């Protein structure tokens, strides 16, 4: 079900400001890629341009192409709403909808946009998605309680359940563990390894160990100075990037000599 993503000569702008320049990158289907790099280098910007969330910010736009199994997401007549339904996203801070219960949060994407083709009942989808996010056992007795009543780590898994309930092909995660404690982080990382079977996953992280633990491939981004655009420095299998990076700056960053 999952799909391959190709970024082709991608330039990303905020208004006139070129934030990221010339990214060429391939994420294989059913693999986990992590984006690492110092703050401000454009990792999150690249991530958000993959499901067209980038353009939510006024003036933001891209040049180049993002191909999902060969189909350009920025082609003419492509509906960003449908793109986002195919490419789900989990944010840095858990953001369950405060007016909804746990169950309502899970099916928010479906209830808000009914998909007539699906035959499962909403209850089945809730259970399946929560099981998929390893949260079912913890919340099955209080599905009617508000989503905000959960702990931070549970809320983040609720957001993952919400994202996979719409059955996307790809999951984008923008520092999903940076607001969580080590135990919740471990739960999410286990989950990422399980989800790999069904989704293509891209995760932005500041945590080198996390990149090493969960990802098959790693892409290192950097920027040459304040106000200059970010660049993709190198990308490769995680083991190789961490042990024999081609570029000196990658090695310096991973070794903790800067950033």
């Amino acid at each position: 079900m999952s799909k391959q993503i190709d970024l082709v000569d991608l330039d990303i702008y905020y208004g006139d400001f070129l934030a990221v320049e010339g990214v060429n990158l391939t994420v294989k289907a059913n693999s986990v890629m992590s984006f690492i790099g110092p703050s401000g280098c454009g990792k999150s910007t690249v991530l958000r341009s993959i499901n067209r969330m980038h353009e939510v910010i006024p003036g933001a736009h891209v040049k180049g192409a993002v191909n999902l199994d060969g189909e350009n997401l920025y082609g003419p007549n492509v509906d960003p709403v449908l793109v986002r339904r195919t490419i789900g996203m989990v944010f840095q801070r858990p953001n369950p909808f405060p007016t909804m219960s746990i169950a309502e949060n899970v099916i928010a994407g479906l209830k808000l946009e009914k998909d007539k083709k699906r035959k499962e009942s909403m209850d089945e989808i809730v259970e399946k998605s929560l099981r998929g996010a390893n949260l079912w056992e913890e919340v099955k007795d209080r599905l009617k309680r508000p989503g905000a009543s959960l702990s931070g780590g549970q809320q983040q898994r609720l957001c993952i359940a919400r994202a996979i309930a719409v059955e996307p092909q790809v999951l984008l995660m923008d520092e999903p563990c940076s607001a969580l404690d080590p135990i919740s982080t471990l739960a999410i990382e286990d989950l990422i390894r399980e989800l790999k079977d069904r989704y293509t996953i891209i995760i932005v992280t500041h945590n080198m160990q996390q990149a090493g633990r969960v990802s098959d491939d790693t892409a290192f981004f950097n920027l040459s100075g304040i106000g200059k655009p970010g660049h993709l420095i190198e990308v490769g299998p995680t083991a190789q990037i961490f042990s024999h990076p081609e570029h000196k700056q990658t090695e310096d960053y991973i070794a903790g000599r800067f950033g």
Partner: protein
Amino acid sequence: MTDLSGLRSGAPVPDTTPHSGPVTSSEAPPPNAGGRQNRGDSADSLHLTGNRLPRWAPWVIAAGAIILGLLVQVTGITVVGLAPGFVAAFAFLLVQTATSWTVEGRRHATDRLATTLIYTTFVLALVPLLWILITVIAKGLSVFSPEFFTSTMRNVNPRAEGGGIAHAFVGTLEQVGIAALIAVPIGVLAAVYLVEFGKGRFAYWISFFVDVMTGIPSIVAGLFIYTALILTGVLEQSGLAAGLALAILMLPVIVRATEEMLRIVPNELREGALALGVPKWKVILRIVIPTAISGIITGVMLAVARVAGETAPLLLVTFLAQDMNPNPATGSQASLPTFVWDQISRGTPASIDRAWGGALALILFVLVMYAGARIIAKIYSPKAR
């Protein structure tokens, strides 16, 4: 003067009070003689304690100040021409600040002074409110009776007793209802546009004119409806015309209140929903507005409360009526504020009593609406647990 608090450099009278009294000796820790200068002598002392006034001190000072005020009152001695209450207040401020400064130091004295001033202004702000409430209740309650609520002023001698507010209540209900029916959808939608879509010139001008509308005196809104719709023959003097005038007054309040509430909805929620592939209009309808609904309802109710008491525009566009007129489309219609105005102007004890009764009914009407809105807001508001 044994520790830090007593030796504040800014203290005006450090040497005239060499001992700050029993407070020091009873509560102070082992004295750290010499204060700041000799800190080196007691390196293990952290200077974390200071003299404090005992809890009862402000009350004792307050009691003393009140007694002083009473003395001024009883003896008739004038202190620079001030009323006894002011004498007591100033005495309290002065004595408390001075005592605190000597015992506790400048920071605590400033704290106590500021605390006292803040509480005083709070009480001062409450006084008119309570005064109005008590007066209106005391004078209005006497005419409250089943008859007062069910009858009109039809065939009642306006100078004599009897009659009621039924016609005025129905009028207010209809006029405010029409105003809300027009202003709430337009106002909420305008706010949604300004917050969720509005960029550039058009939004700027909308926002600008909302500000201008906020400043429109109510009589001008009435004059506008009068000249634009009544003099031109589109409408006659009627409840509908009154509702339109009130809608003009309501609109900016609703736009501003709703705008504020929508702006504090975290952007993360919008992005979270957009990232699920939800179209923007549904994000606004299902996520943004429900999250802000309790604030929006409160804002709407404040707008309703504001226009429910408007009198001037109503006198222009619907004038007075002594009889029930349930049809807002034709003919003059009474309302609670114009009823009060009318009865006061009659000038007899019976009519003035009715005016107070009308005023109390108006306050109760707004209060009930507000309480209802709070309950609705509570039901819809986001729940934490």
